[in-house]
């Protein structure tokens, strides 16, 4: 069921986060609506990851309010609606005893009751997630034997297996080669355009996906929202202000 357009998926008001007296994030307010593709950029240590971790309830805000699907964070229970792909996604322990199927099936775990058997619906969801990420042929391979790019897609398929409405990715592409990355980006684009999945993507590569994204958030202690990402990226002041690597702009120019 498509979520009501009026209620934002994430509704954040005056969010601040400080640790040992140091302000990491101050006064962040934002709204993320259904089926949007949002990229988050900003310098290292600027608070991108912290912001996302607070949205997911992994870090507690010092002040401010987060609502998810209209509910306060602490009252929100439907976590299967949110798929999370963390930063270290492609660094799986090489010895971890799990096939691709084992890992993707984890995406169904939280919706199980006690002693619940794997249902047809579970199987269907896992198969469809593997298809979307194009890893069906890797099904029985051990996760530790895969390349970085393949693991990235496996981890993403795990997040998709719970049939989420939002996918949150925190720079999942470290250590992944350029060809695999581009393939991954087109898969994300398809998820957003065809499946109408909301995507929140922390990335260093925003130049490459500039055409796909609807909005751009720049996080460096404060948040700047930009509804015309392409324009913002070609703006020199923006890169100076936030210390974004010059190659972002460079990539963008080369892409067009």
């Amino acid at each position, binding site marked *: 069921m498509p979520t009501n357009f009026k209620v934002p998926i994430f509704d954040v008001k005056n969010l601040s986060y400080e640790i040992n007296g140091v302000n990491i994030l101050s006064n962040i307010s934002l709204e993320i609506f259904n089926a949007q593709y949002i990229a988050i950029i900003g310098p290292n240590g600027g608070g991108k990851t912290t912001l996302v971790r607070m949205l997911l309830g992994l870090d507690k805000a010092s002040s401010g309010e987060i609502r998810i699907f209209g509910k306060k964070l602490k009252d929100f229970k439907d976590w299967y609606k949110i798929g*999370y792909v963390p930063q270290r996604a492609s660094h799986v322990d090489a010895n971890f005893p799990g096939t691709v199927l084992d890992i993707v099936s*984890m995406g169904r775990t939280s919706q199980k009751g006690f002693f619940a058997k794997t249902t047809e619906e579970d199987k269907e969801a896992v198969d469809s997630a593997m298809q979307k990420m194009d890893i069906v042929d890797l099904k029985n391979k051990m996760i530790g034997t895969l390349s970085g790019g393949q693991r990235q897609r496996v981890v993403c398929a795990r997040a998709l297996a719970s049939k989420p409405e939002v996918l949150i990715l925190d720079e999942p592409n470290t250590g992944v080669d350029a060809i695999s990355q581009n393939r991954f980006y087109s898969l994300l684009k398809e998820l957003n355009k065809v499946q109408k999945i909301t995507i929140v993507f922390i990335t260093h590569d925003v130049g490459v996906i500039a055409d796909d994204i609807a909005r751009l958030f720049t996080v460096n202690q404060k948040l700047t929202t930009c509804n015309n990402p392409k324009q913002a990226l070609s703006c020199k002041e923006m890169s100076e202000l936030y210390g974004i690597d010059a190659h972002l702009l460079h990539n963008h120019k080369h892409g067009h």
Partner: protein
Amino acid sequence: MGINVLEIFEYEFMQRAFLAGMIIAVLASVSGTFIVLRRYSMISETLAHSALVGVAVGIVAGYNPLWMAVIVAIISAWIIEYLRGHFSLYSDAILAIMLSGSLAIAVIIVSLGGAFNNSLFSYLFGSILSVSKEDVITIFVFGSLALGVLLLYAKELYFIAYDEEVAQVSGIKIKFLNFLLVTVVAIIIALSIRVVGSLLIGALMVIPTISALQFKLGFFKTSILSLVFAIISVACGMIFSYYFSLPSGATIVLSVLSIFILSLAVSKK
């Protein structure tokens, strides 16, 4: 030797020891899989030493040492989880502190009670002679409960072992399950010290899984292989213990170590 092996089952004490040993093999390997994958292998050593405090209290005060071991091990497991969650201490340091602290307390209790004797020795290194009927019943009842809980939450525990934060975000109750896992492990360890001994039970929890991991199989196959290794080790260990009059914990651990070395050799090819 075939006939001799059957002969050992003519003795009732061996039947009891074998029954207890098999239950423990199943419990130790299943719980060990989760402990190893969570990089938490040392908790088994620590809880085994904590269980000794219970044994000491039991011996000195005249309560059932096995029951006391279960209770003290659970309390210790909860203290460890609490410290891990509420103070910024290193996990391995907490385990080291609890390990030596427990042993110190156990030694003082035993010394004050004047109970340094063979009975204590059997709790340290395991003994097939000392498994009573009451012990078998205790091991069976608590063991079934512990196994039930592990199987009930196997999928969740596997997910947490893979990535705790991602599991949390997907709605799994991490805190509850972490407490549950250490509680179950505490029970299993306390039950095992009769047969394997508190100084040696850690090996039976960890080594079967480590050996099975060498074959790089999926989760289910790895668990089954680990189970098979544990059962073979306990069976072989008990037979050697019987024939050479050695503490069963030591012979079991040497058996499981042999399996580990073989696994390394075979999987290297």
